[in-house]
Each structure stands twice: as structure tokens, then as C-alpha cells.
């Protein structure tokens, strides 16, 4: 096997930094700055307690992202399976600690950060599937027996996450996994069959859902059902968004959030705060920034020379977009409240860490696009 286009020599660190996707870095920083502004406003015009810490976190995470980006992609390729099992192990640890210790705990406290293994798992599953499909041919993809292992790669973490219980994260892993199958060439019929199966599963799933999850679904279907209780968040969020109008109420002038009508304004409902203060113009601007990031991921992916990079970059882009879609659709009342953060903007360490690791890997795919990961 010979390849006409392959870069022979190993890149130096400076070459890698020069090849870093600075435009993507700029887009990410831009989105993070929107987050800083929103957190500054959420605190009533103050850097503390949220904006300043978020800035520090972003600084650390950006540094980590660059480190990950300049590490040769083949190392990530080789580390995929160990990382996958480490992720599973951490999920198990959280699960056991939760049972032994203090109820439904989803994180491991490392002192400087509360590590949420399920967040990391989203990235690792994408890596594992990319690695598995890297060597697969189209014929392989049509073989059901070949697909047993990737399905297990998805279902093992999903099962553990469901036990936590965290329906939102489970669904995200499944959707990202489904996208990986799709890009690797899985049969369309698999999706049609899957859709039918899901439809059939709904009554069964309903039966196994926790009460609070049922509440969320019911409230989503009719937010006015309980305007002071569970529907309150959605209703108040819609009021905040709607009252923003075209131009918004102005920076620091969002009455809904300033007067605490908006729940969780610094985390899950931060988009609402932003759109209340900056209106449709601000909202569309932010959506466009996200859109550009998605397209950048797509661009890296289709420029990829090898399947691993192609799948990994696109999978990470899909993963990132899922965060965005779920959060924004939730605050607009399009889907039930699932408790998902808006990546790069919501206050919080783990989601920031997870997406920045994702971007680091995406950049690594781009920087080392001529590297041969195997064989």
C-alpha cells in the first residue's frame, strides 16, 4: 500500500502551533466572551461570582485544548480503548459512590474541579466509534454482526448514565453514536427500523421513567398545566425571550433575569438572559457563531485524509451541536426541560472542559491530517 500524498517528516511544536486552527480558536473565544458578558449580567453587573471564575476556567481549558491539539493524533488513536475503559470505570466509580455515599451524585471531586465522567464519556464514545469504524469497509457496515461491538460501545456507557439517572446525557450519547453510524455508512434502513423501534419503546420507557422525568415531559407538552410549579421555568423563560424583542432590553437591563424570575439564569437558562438583553439580533448572532463552529468541524472532517480523523472531527462537531440544540430548544420551550448546559457559555467546569477537549481533538485531526494513524 502506498500513498502518493503523505507528509514524511514529523512536525515540530512550532509548526503544529502554526498549523493550529486559529480561526476556530477565535470563534470559540468569541462564544466564550458572550458567556462572560452574560454571566457578568447574571450577577447584576459584577464579575463575581461567575464571570471571573468562568474566565479563569476558559483560560485553563484553552491551554489544555492547545496541548491536546498538538499531541499527534496517532497517540489519541492508540489511547482510544484505554480511555474508553477508563471512562467506563469512572462511571462505575460514580455509580458505586452514589450508592454508598450521598445519593444521586454524578461527579468525582478532584479538588480543583468536579469531574463529571458522563461528560467525558460523550467524547470518548465518539473516539471509540471513530476508531472502530476506521478500518471498516462499506461491506462491513452492512453486516449486523460487525455492528454488535459499536452498539455495545454506545450502550455500555448509556446504561451506566441512565442509572445515575441522567436521561439527557444518555440521549445525547445515543444521538451522537447514531450520527457516527450514519457517517460510517450504516444502512438507512437501520435508522428507519430504529425509529419504529423507538416509537414502540415509548410506552415502555414511560413506564420506567422517574416521576420527575414524567413531570418534565408532561409539563413540556402543556407548560400552562402547572404555571407555578414545573411549568414555571418554561413559561418564565419564554416571557424573558419574548419580551426581549428585536433589539433586546439592553445590557444589564433584563428584568426577568435581574428580578430572579428566570430560574438557573447562570447555567441552563443563560441563553434566555442573553436573548432578553440583546434581543433577536443578539440571539441570531450567537446562533451564527455556533453554526460557524459546526461548519468548521465539517470542513476539518471532509478534508481529513483518513477515516479516523474524518469520523472523529465530524462526530465531535455533532456532539457539540447536540449540546447547543438541546439547550436552546429547551429554553425556547421546544423540548422538555432536561437540564443541559449551553456549551462555552453556561457557568460550570465540566461541560466547558468536555467541549474544549473535543475541540482540542478536532484541531489535532486538522493539524495532523497527513499523519497515518495505523498501518
Amino acid at each position, binding site marked *: 500500500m502506498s500513498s502518493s500524498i503523505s507528509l514524511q517528516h514529523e512536525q515540530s511544536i512550532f509548526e503544529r502551533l502554526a498549523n493550529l486552527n486559529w480561526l476556530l480558536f477565535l470563534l470559540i473565544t468569541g462564544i466564550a466572551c458572550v458567556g462572560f458578558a452574560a454571566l457578568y449580567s447574571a450577577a447584576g453587573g459584577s464579575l463575581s461570582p461567575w464571570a471571573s471564575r468562568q474566565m479563569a476556567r476558559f483560560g485553563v481549558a484553552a491551554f489544555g485544548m492547545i496541548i491536546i491539539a498538538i499531541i499527534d493524533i496517532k497517540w489519541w488513536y492508540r489511547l482510544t480503548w484505554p480511555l474508553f475503559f477508563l471512562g467506563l470505570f469512572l462511571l462505575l466509580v460514580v455509580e458505586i459512590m452514589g450508592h454508598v455515599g450521598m445519593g444521586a451524585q454524578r461527579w468525582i471531586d478532584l479538588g480543583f474541579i468536579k469531574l463529571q465522567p458522563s461528560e467525558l464519556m460523550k467524547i470518548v464514545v465518539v473516539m471509540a466509534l471513530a476508531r472502530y469504524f476506521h478500518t471498516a469497509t462499506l461491506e462491513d457496515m452492512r453486516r449486523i454482526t460487525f455492528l454488535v461491538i459499536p452498539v455495545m460501545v454506545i450502550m455500555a456507557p448509556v446504561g451506566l448514565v441512565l442509572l445515575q439517572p441522567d436521561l439527557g446525557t444518555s440521549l445525547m450519547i445515543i444521538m451522537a453514536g447514531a450520527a457516527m453510524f450514519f457517517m460510517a455508512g450504516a444502512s438507512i434502513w437501520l435508522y428507519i427500523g430504529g425509529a419504529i423501534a423507538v416509537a414502540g419503546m415509548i410506552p415502555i420507557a414511560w413506564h420506567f421513567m422517574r416521576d420527575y422525568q414524567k413531570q418534565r415531559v408532561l409539563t413540556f407538552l402543556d407548560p400552562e398545566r402547572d404555571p407555578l410549579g414545573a411549568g414555571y421555568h418554561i413559561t418564565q423563560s419564554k416571557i424573558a425571550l*419574548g419580551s426581549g424583542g428585536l433589539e433586546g432590553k439592553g445590557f444589564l437591563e433584563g428584568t426577568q433575569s435581574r*428580578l430572579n424570575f428566570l430560574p438557573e439564569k447562570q447555567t441552563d437558562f443563560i441563553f434566555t438572559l442573553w436573548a432578553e438583553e440583546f434581543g433577536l439580533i443578539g440571539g*441570531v448572532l450567537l446562533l451564527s457563531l*455556533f453554526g460557524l463552529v459546526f461548519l468548521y468541524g465539517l470542513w476539518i472532517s471532509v478534508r481529513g485524509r483518513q477515516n479516523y480523523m474524518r469520523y472523529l472531527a465530524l462526530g465531535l462537531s455533532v456532539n457539540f451541536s447536540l449540546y447547543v440544540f438541546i439547550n*436552546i430548544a429547551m429554553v*425556547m420551550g421546544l423540548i422538555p426541560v432536561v437540564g443541559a448546559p449551553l456549551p462555552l457559555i453556561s457557568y460550570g467546569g465540566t461541560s466547558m472542559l468536555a467541549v474544549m477537549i473535543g475541540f482540542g481533538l478536532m484541531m489535532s485531526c486538522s493539524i495532523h491530517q497527513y499523519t497515518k494513524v495505523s498501518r
Partner: protein
Amino acid sequence: MKKQQDQVKVFTRRAFVIGGLQCAILGVLGGRLAWLQVAQGSRYKTLSEKNRINLKVIAPERGQIVDRFGVPLAVNAQNFRALIIPEQTDDIEKSLRTLQDTIEISEEDIQRVLKQAKKTARFVPIEIRDDLEWEDVAKVEVNLPDLPGLNIDVGERRSYPYGEATAHLIGYVAAVDKSEVGKDPLLSLPGFKIGKTGIEKRFDLDMRGQAGRAEVEVNVVGREVRELRKKESRHGKRVVLTIDGELQRFTQSRLAEQKSASAVIMDAHSGEVYAMASHPAFDPNIFTSGITAAQMLELDSNPAKPFVNKAVSGQYPPASTFKMITLLAGLSNRTFSSRHTVFCKGHFDLGRDRFHCWKRGGHGWVDARKAIQVSCDCYFYELALELGIDSIAEYAHMLGLGEKYGFELAEERAGLVPDRNWKLGQFGEKWQPGESVVAAIGQGYLQATPLQLAVMTSRLVNGGYAVKPWITGGDIWGNKPPEGGWPKLNLNSAHMKVVKDGMDRVVNTKNGTAVGSRIVEDEFAFGGKTGTGQVQRITMQQRMAGIKNEELKWKSRHHALFVGYAPMHKPKYVCSVVVEHGIGGSRTAAPIARDLLLEVQKRDPAKTPLHEPNDQVVQNKDKQKEQTAL
């Protein structure tokens, strides 16, 4: 190689499908955002404002009620309340206990506050006690550093300085009933009180004033963040009464010697009411400070009905006080001349019925003046039989009986003046001559209120003017006298003089029925007429056995009435007194009327024109309040 290229092709196609899907979803989200913010924007803007802004109603100060001299009869007393704001203290109970050492606080109050503190938001003040004395306020203020969370607040409470004396007249205020809550947002205000009876009710809207409004920005738990707009409340109008407060008090205390009585003192010419009292009464202040169930039960079960203003709503047979009307009707119709005499042998027979004169053995020969003087029943029996009821009724109406005056108190009743048509309509029966005989002496169907009797007397002695009573003046006129005075009645002055001569004699001559109550000083001398109203028919057995009325049960005794005027020569003041079951007019009602007429002449309230209200006084009062608050 070919396979690999195929795979790349498939991948690229599918990658773009995924990218397209991502963009499409973003588009949907953008579209949803535009829908919410632009298409539905105004709707959500309204909702957001509603969220944010609380309308606060500011209660206005209720208008005062003052007497004709400007002396307050109903005021807004300062009500010092001790409040605690839970969020300002770490330990509510400790603050309360410290307060308990400082001023008197009951254990129940402490438990109630602690219980409430658990239920409400921590910034909502909770009332510990109201109606604090000045001394207590001072003590609390001094100890404030040791009482975290404690606040003293000055509220307002309606207070009636004259207490019982003005209870029926002024009425009282109390909490709004559910059925009364209407458009005025004030009525929904917690603790807001409205007039329930008397002047407080009649002029409630005038005195209520206009609510102020404050728009306050509130956060999600309802805490006020800042005030956006404020419209001050407008205090209610002041009501000036024609009443003389001290005379009112005197009247009330004079009646208090009886079990149940009422009296009216008014101006014979202008119609101003100077005093109007009904006994027994109640203390209206108990309604504003909170009436206990026991107090309420006691008042409610009293057979003398303390809540009824008998001066305007007590309806009694006018009895012999009606004889002036019968005489005036007889003289006017030329049935009898003033010199015509009737022989009274103690009874009068009509067919098989025998009607007795009050005096056993009779009065002998009686003319018009003497008939009034000695209150001879037989004279009027004979007169009425020839005159007929319709003539009597005509003059009764002319003198103000059987109708409402549109008086300021809603409790006013019309009384009853019967005639042929009335009986036909009421019972479908023909009027009997015997009924005219009974009506001539003010018994039977006839009914009149003390106020009506006072009006009747006024019209008899004021030269024949159709005066009507009124009680409010100044800005708020209730029953304003017409321009150019009250209309003249179609009465012959010579006839009126005969009647008045008779009434002068009642009090001031040897055989007069009320001579015992005579005022000897000529300048204060008064005239009038006694009346004794039968509650039960005197049975033949009782008459034969000579049972005295005082030996009967209280409820069965006669009502005692007196109408009078003074000074005798140039009447200015008129009074009517009704003592329920008081046995006899000359015995119980006349002495009261004497004292009232003497007092009103001495005080001479007519000399002073009605107090003119102006804002100057109100402002001074406000200033005073500020000073006391300091």
C-alpha cells in the same frame, strides 16, 4: 482503491447531510426565536411587565366628621403598631421575649407571630400588637438596639371621641363585607374599613377619599426593589354636622336615666338638627378596635335594641301629641270654631262602643284651647266624628307626618297616616267612624317617629313653614333648605295661634298636663304637649279594677311622649321626646324635654353659624401629626 473512493464518496455525501441538518436545526431555532421575540414580542412584553410591576394601593385618610362648631365627632386616631420583620433578626423569639420584658405582650401573640413567621416570606412585616400607648412606644424606641427586627409603624384607626353619645348618629366603620367589594380597589385592601351605619354610611363615598397608587418593581419572591411611580392618595372630604356635640352628649346622658328612650332637638325655622339621641346606645369604638363575640351577643340580646336609632326609625302612636293636628284640621274646615264647647262626661258613646277620656269623671265644658291644655279626649272624639279621617290625614301630611324627608340617615322611617283609601288598599275594608275617633287622639293605625314629631311641632310654631330636618352642611349638603326658605303651608295664622295658645297652657297653667315641668324664668319658658301612647288596649277589667299602668310588665306599659318648643313667646328650638313604656307623657317625657329645652336655650347653638370647613384646618392637623410622630 475503488472501494475506498466509494467509501469516501458515501462519507462526504453523508457528512454534508449531517452539516445540512445542523444548519437546518439552527434555522429552526432562529425561526422560533424570531417568532417569540418579534411576532409574539408584545404579548410577552406585557407579561414581563406584569411580572415585574406590582400595583400598590395607598389608602387615603378618611374625612373627619365635626359638629357645627368644628369639634371632631369622628377622627382618625394614630394607631401605633409593633411589627417584626423576620429577616432583620437572627432569632425572632429572642427579639419577642426581649420585647415582652419591655411592654405587655401576651403569650398568644408571641405564638401567633412565631407561627406566621414560618409561613410568610422573611421580609414581610408581622404585626405583634396594635394600639400601643405613647409610653410603650417610647420604651420600645429606647430599647430598639436590643430588639433587632422590631419596627414601630403608625397606622390610623377611626375614633369617636363622643363614644355612645354619637353612636347612632355617626354610626361606625367596620371591615368590608364580601358582598360590598366592588370596583373601588380600596375595598379589597386588607384592613380597610367602610361606614356601616349613620353618617359614616351615608357619606362613606365622600369621606373615603381617593386611593393613591404606587407602582413598585418586585422580584420573584415579591420583595419591593424600588418604587417606579407614585400617585399620592387624596384624603376624604370633611363632613360638618349641624349637631352641637355637647348638647348631643347632654341629651344622651339625660335619656340614660330611662330604660329606652329617644329625643330630637331641632331648629323650628331652619330645620337644623342640634341633637338626636337614642338610648340605649353602644360604643362605636369597639367596632374599630375589634369587638368580642361576648360584647356582640350582649348588645344583640338587649330587648331595648341598642343598635336601633329610635329617633328616626322608632315608630310610635303619636297619641295626644297628635291632637294639635286634629284641632287644626277642625278649625280649618270650620267644623268647630275656636269658641265651640264640648261637654266631657268622661266617656263618649258611638253606637254600642264606649270611648273613654283619660280623666275619669270628665273635664266638663271644654273649648279648643282647653282641649289641648287638659288633653281632653272627648272633645276630639266628637270633633273627629264630624270631621272624618281624610281631613285629619290631609293635615297630618301637611305637618310632616307619614312621609320620609330624605333625611341624611338611611335608617329614617316613614311612619303611617291612615285614611279611607289606605284602609281599603291595605285590608279591603271600609273605614269605620270609630277608627276616626281613635285616630283623633293619635292612636289606632297612626304611627310617627320622634323626628317626625319634632318636624310637626316645628311647623306648628314656626308660622306655618314646611320645614324639613337636615344634619349636614358645608361642602356636603344632605337635605339642603331651598333658596328663599321653606315653602309656606296653607294654614290660617289665627287657627295656628289657637293651637299654640293651648300648647302654651299645657306647661304654663294650673290645669295643664305638663305644668309640673314648667320653667319659671320667663325668658326660658316653653310650651308643648304631652302624649301617652297605648301599647295594649286597656281592658274593661283593668279599668274597673283600677290597675295602675306601672303595675304592668315593662313591655305592656304605655309609651310616654312630649313635644315642646322654646322660648315660649318666640319659638326657636323644638324638641320631641319618646320614652318607651314610660307610662305617661307628663310623668317621664315632659321632665326630660324641660331639661333639654333649657339646655339648648342656654347653649343657643343657633346663634353660631355652621362651621365653614377649609383646608387650613386640615393642614394644621397634618402638621400636628408630624410633630407627634417626631
